[in-house]
């Protein structure tokens, strides 16, 4: 059976930097009951400690705050090869960002066959206070995007069985 993991990245203490974590929590509340096999992971800023959740997935959905190359949308969705090869998010003690984790997974030969990143650019990174009103407004849109991705994956899974 295909394994689906959803990881939210970021630090909830720093405003919109916590977007990914808030998104995975909301998506879990909405979908956990109907998708019992999907794993929802509050990844925080755990870097290298998230390797297992990446390598153990066949399909991986990631929520994160991002800085896009061009500001042309509100919610950004990147799939597989669209993910930049070098993503310099330094999130753990061992400075393992997503790109490094994926490169390790590649070296181990354990890269998920589908990876989707859903993100929004942060408006406010101030300490405390939670998401900005702008990020709060985009949260449900991003989570709906995530839900439809999960639905496609789980339907796909049923078809293949």
């Amino acid at each position: 059976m295909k394994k689906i993991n959803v990881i939210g990245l970021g630090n909830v203490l720093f405003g919109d930097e916590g977007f990914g974590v808030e998104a995975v929590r909301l998506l879990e509340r909405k979908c956990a009951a109907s998708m019992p096999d999907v794993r929802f992971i509050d990844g925080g800023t755990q870097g290298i400690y998230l390797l297992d959740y990446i390598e153990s997935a066949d399909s991986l959905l990631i929520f994160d705050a991002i800085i896009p190359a061009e500001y042309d949308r509100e919610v950004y969705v990147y799939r597989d090869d669209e993910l930049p090869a070098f993503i310099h998010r330094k999130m753990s003690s061992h400075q393992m960002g997503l790109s490094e984790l994926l490169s390790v997974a590649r070296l181990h030969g354990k890269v998920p066959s589908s990876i989707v990143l859903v993100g929004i650019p942060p408006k406010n990174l101030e300490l405390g206070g939670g998401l900005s009103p702008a990020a709060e407004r985009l949260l449900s849109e991003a989570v709906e995007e995530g839900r439809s991705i999960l639905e496609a994956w789980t339907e796909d899974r049923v078809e293949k069985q």
Partner: protein
Amino acid sequence: MAEKIVVDPIPRIEGHLRIEAKLGENNVIEDAFSSGTMWRGIEIILKGRDPRDAWAFAERICGVCTTVHALASVRCVEDALGIEVPPNGRIIRNLMNATQQTQDHLVHFYHLHALDWVDVVSALKADPKQASAIAQAISPWPKSSVGYFKDLQQRLVGFVESGQLGIFSNGYWGHSAYKLPAEVNLIAVAHYLEALEFQKEIVKIHTVFGGKNPHPNYLVGGMACAIDPNRNTAINIETLSMVRRIIDETITFIDQVYIPDLIAIAGFYKDWLYGGGLGNYLSYGDFPEQSVHDASSLLWPRGAILDKDLSTVHDVDPRDMNQVTEEVSHSWYTYANGDEKGLHPWEGETSPKYTGPKPPFEHLDTEKKYSWLKTPRWKDNPMEVGPLARVLLQYAKNDPMITETVNAVLGKLEVGPEALFSTLGRTAARGIECKQTAGFMRHFYDQLIENVKTGDYRTADTRLWDPSRWPKDAKGFGYTEAPRGALGHWIHIRDGKIEDYQIVVPSTWNASPRDSKGEVGAYESALRGTPMADPEKPLEILRTVHSFDPCLACASHVLDMNGEEITRVTIV
């Protein structure tokens, strides 16, 4: 004018750390300045909150230190309220803490620090046959065949040729300060990857006892997990036997991979004994066998060593208002009654006031304030905290296991105890300690089983859960030895809410700026006198700074879709 090197940020570490080093003759570091460039304001976030929730906020301060902040936090609240954790709660916390130490040291050595000594690209030139022979000579570890190393080397070649070095993209490959033969480099890279695989296993122990991972659950009064050998929904025989298996594998990995690698690598660098630094060491101690308030029951002793004098271990009392203090003469904060006077954390103030240059900037005005880190001092002394401090304290107190292991490692390397006061000594101490904490994992596991066998399934004491039973006004101190050193949380509770909360983290001790007397901090001291082979590639600075396992605040890092350079090394 002297050359000044700026390394900002130091690659492969948490948060933002900036080192400015002034070079003297022959490219020897004359002076160094350590600056934390991100503000960490957890104290302000916690004000007014429920003390029972503090741990959940505290564990988000840092990317890796989640469990240690949670532990120090619940301990400080329990201390304030007079709560004694039942034996299972204490033992499980010790077991989780030992697990954290062991995993963190392993990850630090292979994934943060090893690449300061190991040249990945050189491994491509290794002879797999010779690598196999060396590996088999130093360890019985089974993954050591010629085919194993050949296969790994081929994968590595493919990886490098793809142009996406990823994890290995920040190295100074080919630097003349790398001394290992190609074959030892290949062995180390093999174990780098094996350790990455293995560390995934170790944390399963946190999932068992903390309910989930990352971010396991803690609880004021004990632990939130239920133990019942006969119930499926609780921690039972099956889960405990999995824990036992992981502990056994961990001990084997450390004995057969980590320690032999450490000795093999150190053997090629034993004339590089720079980076000793202050010679002052501090530990709060940890791993209580009885009450956490009884310092005499700690397996890791509490104490201080001054000026490398191992004949005297000084008593340390973190509650004494004159011992642990923080001043802000060189930090971007103000104190109501003067920045030069050190304040004990129970009187601590967190009033940020940035007076540095507007970023981006070329360099800091190190004559004035230059860091977001405060300057902690013990009885006015700058102190180093971390594995070297803890190992030296145990060595000074003749702990049998530590003394035997330290002497064995020194003997194999054919160096005397003075070699411990160095960057390499710090790195060796971490390995020695990792062996010890893996042993602690088994020790606490056995203790837990013994205690559960008596029919005691209690993991928490929640009689004082309700704030109506609390004193109106209470102060508490909570501590732990985090993998990177002494961590203290000081709380003041009033009317059921947090009135004040101060945290002094290990990296603040080690990375502290100068104090009002001009005395330097541990990094600053350790970097002085180090010769640099190539100032444009400051490998030697990284080596020494990484040896402390620095961990500054988890800053707000945002995903960069433009793939920008992260390491700015400039000569100004």
